[in-house]
């Protein structure tokens, strides 16, 4: 009898714990899966197709000696009503690197991306009044001989 009670209780506790952990995860999970990412990738491509050259800063090295770590900085903090920022690397297998949604932050992002080969890097800034892009070619040298 005791054992039965113990089992019942432990099952109850575990199920509650699982529920809580799932409950805690929902806000992130609601936005987190690969299909969502593909959707964002398509959205970025749509943004790319009808975007115009924007007045913001895209900082990227002209020559990256190591394609595994290419620093990228996007500063669009003086543009009004920036909603999202995307980093798009045309020659990568998965071209969309990152998609940031700006809610209560400045439109300033720095990160480091991976690049398979020399490619055009496009920063896409989506604002209330349309999308803006800026391109930069980053050369990736494999042998480290300066290309």
């Amino acid at each position: 009898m005791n054992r039965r009670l113990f089992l019942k209780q432990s099952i109850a506790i575990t199920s509650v714990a699982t529920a809580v952990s799932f409950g805690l995860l929902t806000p992130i999970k609601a936005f987190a899966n690969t299909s969502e990412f593909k959707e964002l990738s398509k959205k970025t491509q749509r943004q790319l197709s009808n975007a115009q050259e924007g007045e913001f800063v895209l900082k990227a090295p002209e020559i990256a000696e190591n394609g595994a770590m290419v620093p990228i900085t996007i500063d669009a903090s003086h543009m009004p009503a920036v909603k999202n920022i995307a980093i798009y690397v045309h020659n990568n297998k998965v071209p969309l690197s990152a998609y940031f949604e700006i809610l209560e932050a400045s439109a300033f992002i720095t990160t480091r991306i991976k690049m398979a080969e020399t490619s055009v890097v496009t920063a896409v800034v989506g604002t209330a009044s349309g999308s803006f892009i800026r391109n930069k070619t980053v050369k990736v040298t494999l042998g480290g001989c300066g290309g």
Partner: protein
Amino acid sequence: MAKIKLKAKSRAGFITVRVLIKHPMESGNRKDKSGKIVPENHITNLILKKNNRLAAKAAIGGSISENPFFQFKIPGVKGDEIRFESIDNLGKTLQISKVSK
């Protein structure tokens, strides 16, 4: 070793948030020496909060570098609480919160 590091420093009305995460960020396209595909294991989503309000969020792919680094700028002052969360494709979450300096 902490898996995630955060620095928040306020200056002239803005907080600069720097985050460094220790993560392999395998995209699932790479092969190891024996020719086997290294399984996908990368961070998919990030959330940045200030004083429990969402400041920015991001969806990222496997083409962010290993041990990813991010820098954000949020309007705010010294003493604001900065919270950062990440989740990877295996469902593992990492989180950290700090009071801005």
